[in-house]
């Protein structure tokens, strides 16, 4: 059973990412805060008897469900589902983008101290955040759960309610879409 301190530490460690992830999805800070608070309370009330190690996956699942509930309440679920499936641009599955090249470019621009101008750095981070926000919802969710929340493929599939193959596809497409978008914005070597 997780103690109060373990629960508090866990919520503290996850709250900002949870807020950001939800804000990406609902595009409304107040609604995102409500959803995160609701998810925290659901976790605390219903799963307080679970060990601390189980909290991350449970919380991600609760947060995803709470976000979906919000969309249902907003009666825009059809529009969301439409958005989920609309991403099928011609550049999705091609090998035209050299991810390694992009990776080097990003690391060169942001990841090292050579990017000394903090204003410029903040602008780049903002640009990346904007591009992530513009990803199709399922791709963004898969990308954030895999690389930000650091869940493995099976855990991500469990949270998203889809197959592991779908998770890999969503993640791959998200990475390529981000690489393409960032390159288009000039964030390239």
């Amino acid at each position, binding site marked *: 059973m997780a103690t*109060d301190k373990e*629960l*508090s530490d866990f*919520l*503290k460690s996850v*709250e*900002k*990412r949870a*807020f*950001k992830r939800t804000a990406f999805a609902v595009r409304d*800070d107040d609604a995102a*805060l409500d959803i*995160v*608070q609701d998810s*925290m*309370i659901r*976790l*605390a*009330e*219903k799963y*307080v*008897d679970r060990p601390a190690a189980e909290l991350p996956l449970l919380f991600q699942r609760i947060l995803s469900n709470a976000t979906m509930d919000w969309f249902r309440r907003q009666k825009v679920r059809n529009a969301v589902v439409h958005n989920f499936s609309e991403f099928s641009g011609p550049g999705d599955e091609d090998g035209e983008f050299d*991810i*390694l090249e*992009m*990776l080097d470019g*990003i*690391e060169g621009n*942001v*990841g090292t101290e050579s990017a000394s101008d903090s204003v410029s750095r*903040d602008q*780049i*981070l*903002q640009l*990346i*955040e904007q591009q*992530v926000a513009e990803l199709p919802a399922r791709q963004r969710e898969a*990308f*954030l759960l*895999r*690389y*930000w929340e650091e869940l493995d493929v099976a855990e991500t599939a469990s949270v998203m309610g889809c197959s592991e193959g779908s998770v890999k596809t969503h*993640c*791959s497409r*998200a*990475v*390529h879409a*981000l*690489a393409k978008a960032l390159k288009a914005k000039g964030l390239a070597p």
Partner: protein
Amino acid sequence: MTNNTNSTYSSVRDRDGLEARFGVRVASMLGERAQSTAPDISERLRFAREQALVRAQAARRQEQAATAPVVVSRGRTAALANPLGWWFKLGSAAPLALLVLGLAGIAHVHDKAQIAAVAEVDAALLSDDLPPAAYTDPGFAEYLKTHQE
């Protein structure tokens, strides 16, 4: 053919690895930006966390209350009761089961004693010189009655 398969497999793995590196790098930058959340949002998140902890404590208390013994009082008497405890139910049922078994045992012993007494009478009758049919004779019955008096 094998070389082609191996090289394809290797290139897929390389590509997966690069995608993962890219993803982790972008995510770390997102994390960096997420840490610089506006103060009002940080404050609301702190409030949400505290609310959740209060609820967790309430849920724990409720759970403990549900499993702990409850004092049930009526009038001048008071008793401990635990509606969910299996041991309590078992403890309540055991004396009743012992009582039923005891009564059944007493009835069994009583029946055997009765059977033994009847068998003893039968044996005495059968081993007597007088035939049992004599006891059905009204004259003999009258004779016995007179002699007892």
